């Protein structure tokens, strides 16, 4: 059997560049390490990582012309939708690197940035494949990098505990995923999504499909932190170094939701079922309808009582997973478009929010709500950015979060034009958004209204401000001009 290597190398351009840069980063820090102070090393190594990320975006430009290139078995896929998401992931990683440069991540600087890049490689692979085994390997690469990164505060018991919880939950979820995949393979004899979809369409009824599908949903549900597989999220988010939290909450979520949409809409298109009120039918739409309900209710209600900002944002991200699932339950191309659009908006917003927390918490002495008292006077620019991010998360027009949520709910309503079967889910989503406004505004109250104990100004480096301002600009732009990217996504999703 002869394999053509040229198209593989071409399709893997970004990943190859990142692997080389990750190894270069390790070597560089090893050579310059020990002689210089940690902050200097972070700057140097971080700059190399940033350069590498910029470099890895170059092959994507060369792939733009490739409309739908499938390598044998669809282990690697290049099409415009994949290219867009790879680009988004590279940008998210770059902002994470910028946040990390300014953050205390211990003395193992080279390892930190290398793991970050390895995680990014896993995400790029995850987005660029339509085959279950490659999805599994990519998911593992991402997860293992993130477990290690979560434990990076070596001397913090919290960080260790968070990593252990994340790892144990992750390992069990992975076992479920693999077990489910084995059933799906047994039923269909295929591992790539399209063949599975075709085989299932012929096969029809089978209870084993139910078991397989459910196990796959457990595995991917863990990655997107939907209730009831969310238990790791608050602890991992709180214990991990904040830039890592930002990466888990954004990059890994974007890639996981992208895969979830692809798996459900392509491979399991025949097992949709229905979550229409009064007409429940077993299938993934029904399961996701129920988990979306649970995620929205639990995420929002639990966020109200949180005193720690990172924990609050963790519960808010569980709630957001619920909103996003509403779009998936619609099981239409409009729904899938809305999901992909919202995931991008949500990732940029959340990355910004965690970035502000990372920048301020280390200088204010902690990340409880009390530490953020009077921030508007101490760090006016970052507080303003936080206001933008938080309002976008709450879904206030004209920010990106509002339109993203609007499209999600519109897709759910539109899905059943006669009976509005998903109206119950949409109504719940809107009520829960109102609930979420409360805790987002509590955070704003601490930053803008309550007086600070210590009124000294907090100085933050320029590159950090620029990165976060870039995120805020993205949130505003996606809110004011959502049409171009939405139309683009829509055109690409229909061809999925």
């Amino acid at each position, binding site marked *: 059997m*002869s394999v053509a*290597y040229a198209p593989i190398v071409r399709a893997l351009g970004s990943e190859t560049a990142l692997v080389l840069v990750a*190894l270069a980063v390790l070597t560089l820090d090893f050579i310059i390490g020990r002689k210089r102070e940690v902050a200097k090393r972070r700057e140097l190594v971080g700059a190399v990582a940033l350069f590498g990320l910029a470099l890895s975006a170059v092959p994507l430009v060369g792939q733009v012309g490739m409309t739908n290139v499938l390598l044998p078995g669809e282990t690697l896929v290049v099409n415009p939708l994949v290219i867009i998401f790879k680009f988004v992931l590279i940008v998210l990683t770059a902002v994470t690197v910028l946040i990390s440069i300014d953050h205390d991540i211990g003395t193992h600087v080279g390892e930190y940035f290398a793991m970050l890049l390895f995680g990014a490689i896993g995400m790029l692979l995850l987005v660029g494949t339509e085959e279950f085994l490659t999805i599994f390997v990519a998911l593992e690469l991402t997860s293992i990098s993130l477990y290690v990164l979560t434990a990076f505060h070596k001397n913090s018991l919290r960080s260790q505990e968070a990593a252990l919880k994340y790892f144990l939950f992750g390992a069990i979820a992975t076992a479920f995923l693999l077990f489910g995949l084995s059933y799906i393979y047994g039923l269909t004899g295929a591992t790539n999504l399209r063949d599975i979809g075709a085989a299932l369409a012929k096969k*029809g*009824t*089978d209870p084993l499909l139910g078991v397989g599908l459910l196990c796959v949903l457990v595995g991917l549900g863990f990655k997107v932190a939907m209730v009831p597989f969310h238990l790791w999220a608050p602890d991992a988010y709180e214990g991990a170094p904040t830039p890592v939290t930002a990466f888990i909450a954004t990059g890994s979520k974007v890639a996981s939701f992208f895969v979830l949409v692809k798996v459900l809409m392509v491979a399991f298109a025949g097992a949709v*079922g*229905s979550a229409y009120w009064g007409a429940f039918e077993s299938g993934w739409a029904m399961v996701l309808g129920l988990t979306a309900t649970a995620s929205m209710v639990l995420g929002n209600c639990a966020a109200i009582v949180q005193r720690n900002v990172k924990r609050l944002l963790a519960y808010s991200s569980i709630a957001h997973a619920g909103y996003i699932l509403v779009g998936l339950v619609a099981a239409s191309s409009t729904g899938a478009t809305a999901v992909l659009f919202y995931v991008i908006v949500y990732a940029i917003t959340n990355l910004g929010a965690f970035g502000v927390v990372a920048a301020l918490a280390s200088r204010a002495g902690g990340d409880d709500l009390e530490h953020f008292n009077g921030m508007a006077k101490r760090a006016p620019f970052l507080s303003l950015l936080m206001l933008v991010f938080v309002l976008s998360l709450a879904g206030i027009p004209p920010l990106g979060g509002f339109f993203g949520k609007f499209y999600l709910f519109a897709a759910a309503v539109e899905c059943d034009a006669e009976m509005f079967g998903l109206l119950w889910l949409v109504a719940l989503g809107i009520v829960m958004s109102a609930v979420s406004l409360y805790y987002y505004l509590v955070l704003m109250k601490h930053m803008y209204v309550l007086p600070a104990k210590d009124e000294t100004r907090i100085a933050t480096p320029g590159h950090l401000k620029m990165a976060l301002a870039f995120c805020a600009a993205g949130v505003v732009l996606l809110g004011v001009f959502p049409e171009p990217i939405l139309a683009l996504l829509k055109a690409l999703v229909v061809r999925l």
Partner: protein
Amino acid sequence: MDVCGVSNFNVFPCVNDPYLTQYLFVAVFVLVAVLFPLVPLALVRVLAPRKPSPTKNATYECGLVSKGDSWIQFRAGYYLYALVYVIFAVETIFLYPWAVAFGGLSFGAFVAMMVFVLLLVEGLVYAWAKGALDWK
């Protein structure tokens, strides 16, 4: 690609399905697997005479009495060697079939394997240079 409201599966299938009856064996097997350990345990409860003594409750009935606490610290340095060993193990697993089929492989396959070996060697060199192989 709209799949709105489509469903072709049902969790309550007809049991007459010949495909499903094959799983009846699995069900019977599971039942036996559960009963097999449970029945002797229940029988012991009914039949055996009871003479409890402190020796019978000891962790090792016929060993030395354990001293001190089991929550002690021990060296974790060994795991580094184990990890580095994994590099060689993985390398062998992939190199062996590659070497067997070497005659029929293209130049691309040779380069691909060299890249793979180099990646593993880089890991080993890094660990070595970092001092992971020095027993302290």
